[in-house]
C-alpha cells in the first residue's frame, strides 16, 4: 500500500511542482514523499523511479500520439540516428525515473534502518 501510494504521490507532486519549477522539480517532490512515507531504500528508489517513469512516460506518450509522432521521430533521428519516437518516450521516462528514484533513495536514508525484521 505504502509502495503504491508513494508512486502515486511522487507522480502527483512532480506534476504540480513541474508547473512552477524547472526540470529539477522532481528532486524535492520525490524527496518529500519518500521522507513522509518511509520505505526501505530499494522500495523508495523504485517508487521514485516508477512514479516519474510513469508520469513522464505517459505525458510523452500522449503528446507524441497527439503530434502524430512528428517531433518524437525527428528527435530520435537526431539523437539515436533511428526514426522511432518511442525511443524518445523511453529515454524521457528513464531519465525522469532515474532522477526521481535517486532523490527518493536519498531521502530514505534519513530514516533509521528498519529495526523490525518481519
Amino acid at each position, binding site marked *: 500500500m505504502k509502495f503504491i501510494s508513494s508512486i502515486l504521490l511522487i507522480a502527483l507532486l512532480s506534476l504540480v511542482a513541474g*508547473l512552477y519549477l524547472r526540470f529539477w522539480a522532481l*528532486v524535492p517532490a520525490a524527496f518529500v514523499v519518500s521522507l513522509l512515507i518511509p520505505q526501505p531504500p530499494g522500495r523508495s528508489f523504485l517508487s521514485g523511479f516508477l512514479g516519474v517513469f510513469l508520469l*513522464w512516460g505517459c*505525458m510523452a506518450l500522449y*503528446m507524441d500520439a497527439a503530434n502524430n509522432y512528428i517531433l518524437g521521430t525527428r528527435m530520435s533521428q537526431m539523437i539515436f540516428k533511428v526514426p522511432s519516437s518511442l525511443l524518445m518516450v523511453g529515454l524521457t521516462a528513464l*531519465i525522469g525515473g532515474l532522477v526521481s528514484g535517486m532523490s527518493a533513495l536519498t531521502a530514505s*536514508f534519513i530514516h533509521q534502518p528498519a529495526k523490525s525484521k518481519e
Partner: protein
Amino acid sequence: MRIWPFITSALVTGSLVAALSTSIDSKPAFGPLLDPQEGFWQNADPANMSYSLDLHFLELSAPTKVYVDQRLVPHIFAENEKDAYFAQGYIHARFRLWQMDIQTDLADGRLTEIVGRYSGNHDLLELRDRYYRRLGMGYAAEQALKGMEADSATKAEVDAYTEGVNAYISSLTVATMPLEYKLLNYAPEPWTNLKCALLLKMMSYDLAGEENDFQNTNARNLFSAADFQLLYPSMPDSLDPIVPQGTQMFTKQDTPGVRVKIPTGMDTDYFMTKSGMLTRCLAMVPLGTGANWTAFAYDVPHTGAAQRGPWEKDPQSVDPDPDNGSNNWAVSGAKTKSGVPILCNDPHLGLNLPSLWFEVQIHTPTVNVYGASLPGAPGVIIGFNDSAAFGVTNSMRDVRDYFEITFKDQTKKEYLFNGQWLPTAFRVEDIKVKGEPDFMDTVAYTVFGPVMYEPSYPDPLKSGKYYACKWSAHEVSNELLCFNKLDHAANYDQYLDAIKSLQTPGQNVVFASASGDIAIWAQGAFPAKWYRQGDFVMEGKDSAYDWQGTIPQNENPHLWNPVRGYVSSANQFPIDPKTYPYYLSGNFLTYRAMEINRRLDKMENITPQDMMGLQTDNYDLFAEMARPLFIKYIDTTSMEPGETHLYDLVRDWDLYNSPGEKAPAVFHAWWDSLFVGVYGDELRQTALPITKPSDQTLVEALLKDSSYKFVDDIRTPAQESLRQIATQAWKKIYPVMLQLENNNSLTWSDYKDTHIDHLLKIPAFSDQHLQTGGGAYSINATKADHGPSWRMVVELTTPVHAFGIYPGGQDGNPGSPYFDNTVQDWAKGRYDTLWLMTPDQVNDARIQWKINFTKP
C-alpha cells in the same frame, strides 16, 4: 539516519541533476530538454491544435482580426496600418521567431556567441563573425536604420512591427520557447528596429555581393592580356538583355547623367597583365549626336559547379551563391486568354527550413496586399494587391569594390588620401564567443569604408596589404519604403515612385496592373563605372579610382509596355552593353533568360496554368548549345557496350532535365569533366583563388574554334586536340556513371540530390533526396540546395487569380505539421491557390482559426 549512504546518494543525485542540466560540447542539456513540462515535447504541436487566440495589447488603437486559413496563412484585417504591422510582427514571431533571431545574429557577427567558436573543424569566429563584422554589416544596418527612421511612414511601420514581435517574445515561457532555443540553451533578446535593418542587410549581402575583385586580380597577374581576354571575354556571343537589343533607351538624351572619366596614368598598373596591357575600352555605339560616352566593355565571371580547384568556391566560405538568380516576367493582356496581364516571379535563393518566406495578407482601409513576406521585416516583398502585382530578380551588378589603403604607421591612426594624412575612425567589434573570452576586433574606417582586410585578417590572395571595402550597401537607404509603396501601388506611376527607394540590393522589379500596364526596371543605386572599374582591386591613396557618381535613376534600363507584349528578366545583362553609357560589371547569366524569351515570344492566349508550366519547365538551353560538342568530339570508335549505352543516352536525350532521366547526369558530368580538362591545367598554375571562366565562355569558344588555345594541356609536351580532351573527359566519367547506374542512382534527381536543410544543418530536421528536375540552366532552376524559393503566378482579373508555393511550411517549428508540409508539392511543381480574402468572406470554410487582437 544512515549518514554515508545518505551522503553518497545525495551526491549521486546532485551530480545527476547537474549533468542533466549542463550543456556539454554544444549538446543540449538533457534534463530540461526531455522534461515533458518544459522540454521538446512541449513543441510537439498536436495535429488538431487550434491556432485561435484572444490577445490584448495596449499598443493597439482598434480591434484587429486575423483569419487563419487551412494552409496556416494569416489574413490580417486591421482598422489602420499601424495595427496591421503590429499584428504582422506578432504573427511572424509566433511562427518564425528563432529564424528571425538567428538570421539577424548571423548578419551581426554574433554566431559564435550562440553556438560557440567551432563547428566541426570550421572556425566560425574567423569564417563568419569576423567576416561579417569586418565587412561592416553592423555599420550598414545602422546606416539603413537611419534611412528607415528618417521617413515617418516607414518609422511608424517598423516601430509597430517591432512592438508586435516584442509582444510575442514577452509572452514566451520556458515551455513555449521555440525548439531551437532549447537545443542551443539560450533565449531570445528583445527585438529592435535595428534587427529589421540587419535582416535587410543580410539580403543585400546575399544579393549584392557579386564581385570577384581578388580572384580577377589573381587572373590578371597570371595571364597575358590576350589570354585574359579569351578566358574572360568582354561580352558573350549570345546576349538577350532585359531591354531587347535594338531598343533605343536613350533616344531623348544626348549625354549621360554622369560623365565617367578614366583616371589618368592608370594604364601602367591597373590594366597591366603578366604580359601586355588589357584593352582600355572596346568599340562603343555612339548614342545620339554630340554624345561623348565613356567606352566600356564587359566581363562575365560566372561560376558553376565542378571539381574543386583554385577557381572553385571554398566550401567553408560564406560567399553568396553565384547563381543567386531568379526569373520574373509579365505578359500583357494581348497575349493572355483572359485579356489581362499575368505576372510571374520565382526568386532563386538558398533553400532552407524554416523557409525564408512567409505568406500573409494585410488588409486595412488603405492597403490590401497578399504575398511572400520576410520574417523579420514588415510588409510584403513579392506579391499582389487587387490592382497590381510585383516581383523581383537579382540585378547581379557589382557594387562592392576594394581599395588599397596606405597607413602612416602600424597604429593605423592616419591614412594617405589625396596627398594628406586623414584620421582613421575606429569601430571596435566586441565578439562574445561562447565559453571563451571576448574577441575584440578593431576595424579602421576610411573614406571608402571599413578596412576589411589587413595582415591580421588577410585578403583572399594573402597579400598582407590593407584593403578597404566600398559597398553600396553601406550607404543610407530605405528599401522598406520601396516595398511599403509597392504593397500600395495600383498603377505604373505609383510603382515607379515606389522603386525609386530601392538602392541596394539592385533588383529587376517587374510590375503588372489590372489596368493593363506591364513594366520592368533594372533598379538600384549603381555606381557609374568606367570600363573594368572595380573588376580588380584598386589603388586607394587618392580619389582617382573612386566611384565618380551614381547612375541617375531614370537611366536605369527599363521597359514599359513593349510591343512584343511581355517583359522578363533572369539575371542577364540589363541592356546591350554597347548601347549603355556605363560599364556593366557583374555576374550575368544568359541561358535561362534566352529560353524564357524564346518561349514567351511564341505563346499566345496564355493562362495561369501555362505560366506554371513555364516556371517549372526543365528544358536545358545550355545543353542544347553544348551537346553538339559532345556528339562531334567524343571518339566512339573503341567503346565498351556499357559505354556506348551511356553515350547513346545523351545523344538521344530530349534535353529536358527530368528527374527520372539518366542522360542529364551523364551529360553534366561530362561537361564538368571537359571544363576541368580545358581550363584546369591553366588555372591550377595558382593555388590562390581565381575567377572561374563561365560555361558560356567555354561553349561559345569551342563552337567557334575547336583549336581554342586552352584546349591544349600545357603540362604535356604534345599538342592535344579537342577530340582528345573531350574523349579523355568522357573516359574519366563514364566508369563513375556506370557505377552509379549499377547502384540505381544515376537518375538526374539522385545525381543532383536536391535537399532543403534546417538552418542548423540538422539532418533530422531537413528534407533530403527530393525528386526534382531542373538545374542551373533550366527555367526550373532547382539545384542541390538552391532554387525557386517562392513561385508565384498572378492573373490580374477581378477578383485576382493567384497561385504560389514555397518549399517549407508556415510554421517554423520542426514539431509542427506545418513545418515542411509544402515541400513535396513544391518538388512536384504543384501550386496552391493564393486567396486575397475580402471582408465579406469571414465565414468562408477555408477559415479555420481566428486571432483577435484587442485593447485590454
